[in-house]
Every structure is written in structure tokens, then in C-alpha cells.
């Protein structure tokens, strides 16, 4: 499978990474060379093999459904690039989403 410029733009859009036309051309070459190399996996017979998701075949634990830590507004907002503080509380601030 070889990526065309349209697909490169679509992937970049899905990944929310802005790309220039110049970058699309370069990325197309780089991504295609990586994908061509990856495609050697097609040589491996995997019919009937259970996919392995994690490095250790372990059962994931469930924890008790209780609050462990909370009320950390200030710590959570401390690194915000932009914040809004008003009568309703303290928030992360972003450009207007809903007109």
C-alpha cells in the first residue's frame, strides 16, 4: 500500500498536525519507505494466532470504585497556557467552540 498526497493530508488532519504542501511531499516519501519496510510482516503466517496486546500476559486488576484524590483544581490548572476565572469557578480557556 502506498500513500498518495491526499492520504498524507488526511492522516495529518486526523492526528491534528498542521502540514504544509512541502511537508506533504517529504512525508509521503518517508512514510512510504517506513510502510514498505513494515510490510514484510505479510510473510508471517498468523492464521489462528491470538493477538498479544501487552508485554505480560496478565489479568488487569480492578480497583475499588472510590475517590483516591480530588479537589486539586489549582494543581491541575497550574500549567494551563490560558485559564478563565469567574463566578462559576476556574477553567481551562480555549477559543470559542460554539457560536
Amino acid at each position, binding site marked *: *500500500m502506498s*500513500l498518495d498526497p491526499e*492520504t*498524507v493530508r488526511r*492522516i*495529518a*488532519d*486526523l*492526528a*491534528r*498536525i*498542521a*502540514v504544509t504542501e512541502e511537508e506533504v511531499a517529504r*512525508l509521503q516519501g*518517508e*512514510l512510504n*519507505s*517506513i*510502510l514498505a*519496510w*513494515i*510490510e*514484510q*510482516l*505479510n*510473510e*508471517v503466517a*498468523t492464521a489462528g*494466532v*491470538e*493477538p*498479544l*496486546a*501487552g*508485554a*505480560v*500476559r*496478565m489479568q*488487569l*486488576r480492578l*480497583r475499588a470504585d472510590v475517590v483516591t484524590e480530588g479537589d*486539586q483544581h489549582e*494543581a*491541575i490548572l*497550574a*500549567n*494551563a*497556557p*490560558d485559564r478563565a476565572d469567574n463566578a462559576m469557578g476556574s477553567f*481551562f480557556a*480555549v*477559543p*470559542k*467552540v460554539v457560536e
Partner: protein
Amino acid sequence: MSTPTDLTIAEARDLLGRRALSARELTEAHLGAIERLSSLNAFITLTAERALADAARADERLARGEARPLEGIPLGIKDLFCTEGVRTTAASRILDGFTPPYESTVTRKLWEAGAVCLGKTNLDEFAMGSSNTTSAFGHVVNPWRRRGDNRDLVPGGSSGGSAAAVAARLCLGATATDTGGSIRQPAAFTGTVGIKPTYGRCSRWGIIAFASSLDQAGPIARTVRDAAILLRAMSGFDPKDSTSADVPVPDFEAAVGRSVKGLKIGVPKEYRLPGMSAEIISLWERGAAWLREAGAEIREISLPHTKYALPCYYIIAPAEASSNLARYDGVRFGMRVDPGGDLDDLYAATRAAGFGAEVRRRILIGTYVLSAGYYDAYYLKAQKVRALIARDFDRAWEEVDAILTPATPTSAFAIGEKQDDPVTMYLNDVFTVTANLAGLPGISVPAGLDEGGLPLGLQVIGRPFDEETVFAVAGAIEGAAGFDALPAVRA
């Protein structure tokens, strides 16, 4: 007494315990060394004041006879571990200005064991790389030089700052992380010891995530014993990491020096790559001969899917990375670039400006292999191949107790080499990546020099949660190799 910066952790522990050396002297010697050798660019952030305060507290405890296992030992911390109140960058512009409000479990354990924090070491951006040239804070210089060649060499990556700092005697040991070889490859390139323990041994909580099913923390140190001392302090069950293993932490140090007599050591025939250098082959054979002389039995084994480990990794790791790195959106922390459009424009502009080329490339590959219509062909296929690679090892453990391989296919290369296409760089991890896919412990031990006078490492891989055998075999190699070469640049 030798220069404080030349001490091993075990020696320093002994001198501190006998009050023949103070934690303050030891810390000051390292802070001075870091300043003098700042041209190596091994550290992104220095925490000199904090280090001196840590040392003062250590001296008080030592005076009271209340020393903890790492009391007064100055360490470097890979800048991928979140440290409360200390800027943490992952060597990326996108975390610009980020100061964690919490401490990673592994570093918390180190401070609770009495260690001194010297600062945060440089790395490849988000731990993605094998050369430490993708850092937004500039490349790290390997303290070793090729004979008759003045070019700067890479320290390996991604834990290049940690490895260079330990090799150049800027700290007694350092934390590192390994997703495909990022502890073992830089250790091999700098003549240091690096161990990636079993997946689940060290908590991942508070370590900036790259590929969560592969990431594992471990130490880099100058001796096998020192690596064992550090790993013990870093290990242990943590309820905050859902994949943390609830198993006891053995005294790894006690396993160093344990006899390898009667152990069966596998040498996998598939690791003999076409075109592999004669130097690497002879180093590997020498390693096997040392172990045979120490009473181990060497057996040829087969790990038939080895060839597919790297391409498998380069689907799984970018897929997980594309998901993990979705959180860097310019809203909650780090850099924000607002082009004045809508929220999507803010995300896209921030991520384009904040991520370097290699990180962007991997996010895009990961996004593609997870996208509708391609998931089965790439991601699911890779997970099946991963299962086969793990099965290869399961079968090997029926025959052998540990596996011996070279750590890297070459010694350190010059900065700028191997940059022509991404795949050439990826091949650095050909011997290390299998242990990540199968979740196994692997150590790199310096075992000799190449004809240019650069260090080469051997790797020992063990059964899950059997780091003790790995340490025993590594200790035997270390003893037989008698590696005492020193880097050209050091404190």
C-alpha cells in the same frame, strides 16, 4: 581514596557509611563536574540547590546512623520522569513551561531511599530515537572518541544524557527508560551497564508515556552491582500503574557474583545477521567462551520470528504513541500556538510547532495504522506477530536459563550519520527490541572495545521476573571481560 566522581555506588555507600566522605563533598564534586563538562549537554535542567539540600539531609541521617539504601548517592534523572516542582520536558518544545505537580513513583522511591537529585538528563524527544539527536535541547555528545578521529559521536538513545553522564562521571548512576532499547543501546555505546527489567517491575506512573505496553524504567550505572542496587530501589508494586506487577522485589545485589555454574545459556542463531561485523561476532563468541569457562553450558537456540521484531515494533510503538501523545493539545499544559481560528486550528498549529520531525513522523504512522480500514492489516497483524515472538521465547525457556546476544550491531556512530532515512536509524535496536515485545528483562554489559577503541556491549536476556539470573550472568561477563577502558572526556 579515589576521586569522588570515580567511585562506584557500592564504594560511595561504604565510604559514606564509615563517614570517610560526606554526601556534601560527593554532591559538590559531581555538580562541579557537570559544570566543567557542560559541553556534553548531558543535562537539560540542573537542580544544584536541591542537590545540596538533599545532601545536607543525607549527612544528618548518616551522622545519626539512620542511612537508607541510597543515602547521599547523587543521581541523574532522565527528563521523562515527572519531578514535582522541577521542570520536566521530555526534550520536547511542546511541554514548554511544564512543571509537574506530582512525582513519578520511581523517583519518589529513589528520594525515599536517600538519593540526591543532581538534575534532569537529556534524551531523544519523547524517548523516540537511538542517537539523542532528536532532542529540542540539542544533541548529547558521547564522552568516548574514536581513535584518530575528533568527530563527536552519539551516546545512543533515547537515554543518551543518562548514559553520557554516567560514563563521564557526572553522576554515580541515572534513571532511564527503554521502549525498544533506550537503556541498553546507550549503555553499550558509552561503556556503561544498563538494565531494562521485566515489564511491570518498575511503576510507569509519572513517566511520560511513549508506548505503554513496551515502556519500562531501569537504571544506568558503571558496574553490574551498582545497576542491581539502583534497580532494587526503583522496583516494586504500585497500585497507580494498572500493569505494575504485584510480586516481591528480590535483593538483586545478592545475585551479582552468584555462580553461573550449571546454567544453560542460549545463543540464538537468528541474531547472526547477514553482513554483521566480524568484531561483533567475535565479541559474542568471546562472551560465550567466558560463560563456558565459568561452568555454564552454551546451547544454540532458535527464535524464528526475530527478523520480524523491528517491523512489528514500528507498528505497535507508533500506534500507542499516536494515542498517548494526543493529550498534547495546547489546552491543559505546555505550549499553545493560537493561529486565530477555531479549536481544531489551535490543536493542529500547536502540535505542528511543538513536536519535532521524528515525533510527528511516528504519530502519523501510528494514526495511519490505527485508522479505519487499515487496523486489521497493520495493527492486528503486528499484535499477532508479537504473540509469535513471545512464543519463541516461551519455547526457549524450556531449554535455557538465559540468552546471550550482542547489545548493538555497531559501536557509537558520528553525529549526523545514519540520518539519511528513518529505517537505517531504527535498525540500531535490532537486538534489543525483542525483549520489549516479550516483556523480558535484558541487560547490556560492556565487554570490549572495537578497533576504533569504542566500547561494545553484550546483552543478557532472562525469563520474566528472573532479573537475578540476568544479574548473575552479567556479573560473570563483567568479571571475565575486565573492562577498564575509560572515555576520552570525563571528570
